[in-house]
């Protein structure tokens, strides 16, 4: 068995991913800021100038609270899903614990997530919604979200080894999710019977929690936190189980 230093390996893999992504870019991490700002501008234009009948105040930060988690979720999930198949050289040559490959890929996305969260917080301050104690909830909700993405990625990355079509399923699911999570609309516009289901989707739950904390300056509701904790932990446990079951045959399928 592999008896190495998990943290040291994880750190090296995360740093590797981050460095190779930015080393040859002249603008470097600036790209992490540009994408959400451009999307924020476009969506604000569409929903305040083209369809001017929405009643949501502070629309730019409202939409940014949706875009930052959505971007993180889709990028981490898509890169994570293909990570095991793309690292076949590693999997077939080095007996490292296989779980570490998709998890490192998700965590390396967290580096630009950090930059985007900083952007979000700055925008919140610019729009005059000041600091408040409920900001302390931010690490909790983000932590749960990262746990959820890790779990989901463990499942899809293992399946992708056996059936390579899984990556296209994930890609399509991400396109669909842009409409099915409240990125640019308020949960209040969703009929009540559907709205309860939304809270079980950790991505929607996170977006709602962010808006409560940053725009309303309040603590997220305890039912929402419970549902978020429940589904994230469940998905992560399921991910570890599925990955463990499937990893034995990776060698034959890569």
């Amino acid at each position, binding site marked *: 068995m592999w008896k190495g*230093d998990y943290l*040291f*390996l994880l750190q090296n893999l995360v740093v590797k991913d981050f460095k190779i992504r930015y080393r040859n870019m002249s603008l470097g991490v600036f790209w992490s800021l540009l994408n959400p700002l451009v999307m924020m501008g476009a969506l604000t234009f569409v929903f305040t100038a083209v369809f001017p009948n929405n009643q949501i105040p502070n629309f730019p930060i409202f939409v940014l609270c949706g875009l930052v988690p959505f971007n993180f979720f889709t990028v981490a999930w898509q890169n994570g899903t293909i990570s095991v198949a793309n690292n076949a*050289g590693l999997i077939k040559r080095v007996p490292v614990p296989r779980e570490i490959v998709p998890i490192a890929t998700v965590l390396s996305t967290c580096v630009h997530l950090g930059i985007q969260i900083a952007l979000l917080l700055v925008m919140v301050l610019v729009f005059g919604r000041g600091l408040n104690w409920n900001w302390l909830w931010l690490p909790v909700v983000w932590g749960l979200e990262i746990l959820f993405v890790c779990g989901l990625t463990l499942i899809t990355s293992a399946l992708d080894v056996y059936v390579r079509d899984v990556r296209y399923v994930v890609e399509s699911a991400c396109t669909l999710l842009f409409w099915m999570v409240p990125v640019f609309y308020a949960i209040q516009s969703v009929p009540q019977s559907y709205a309860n289901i939304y809270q079980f989707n950790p991505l929607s739950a996170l977006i709602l929690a962010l808006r409560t904390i940053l725009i309303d300056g309040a603590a997220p509701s305890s039912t929402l936190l419970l549902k978020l904790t429940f589904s994230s932990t469940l998905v992560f446990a399921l991910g570890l189980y599925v990955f463990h079951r499937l990893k034995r045959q990776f*060698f*034959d399928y890569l």
Partner: protein
Amino acid sequence: MKVIELKNVSKTFHRSGGQKLLRHYLADILGKTDAEQFFALKDVSFSIRDGESVAVIGANGAGKSTLLSLVTQLVPPSTGTLDVKGRTAALLDLGSGFHPDLTGRENILLNASLLAFSRKQAHDLYDSIVEFSELDDFIKEPLRTYSNGMMLRLAFSVAVNLDPEILIIDEVLAVGDQKFQAKCTEKIFEIRNQGNTLLCVSHVSPTLQLLCERALWLDHGQLVMDGPIGEVAAAYEGRLTRQG
């Protein structure tokens, strides 16, 4: 003490190259599967004591690399049991964990962590790895600027400096120029003389006969001979000349 023990080990692969499409799964469920399996290893049993140095010889496709993948625990056997005790380091494919955009230094640390070094060990051994590789100032340059030989030298230096209890070598003795090759061979002899276990897959050569005392001859996935390297090599070469 037995450090490696295989009992009736077989390893099969699917003929389709492992990749199954939806229709194959459907065929499986409906029971229409054409059980076309390929034995990479068939009913192999042997054990290796600590301190032994053993060569694995055989033609291409005889199952040598599969055997090494099993011993390094990259893949479980299809049937039979396999037991490995001690820290293994495999020089299977040198540089599989390397990335061209990272510098030599970054690659050393990454590869060290993949090969189960702790943070402290990696930093302690860093200087001796760089010194052994003779790369000097190039260590700060990205790997894509290296020549092929330089890259292999770096990979070899990382792996042999791990101080493994069981060193597994797959035809990688030909690294770099002659001077560096001599140095590598010397290092491998040094590891052996310290009482570590060695498992080499290679073509029969004078160096191999000096390095190993025992040989396993694999043919079409089956173990045909196990004994002192002189005898096995003679029998193996005798078979080749008869066939030729």
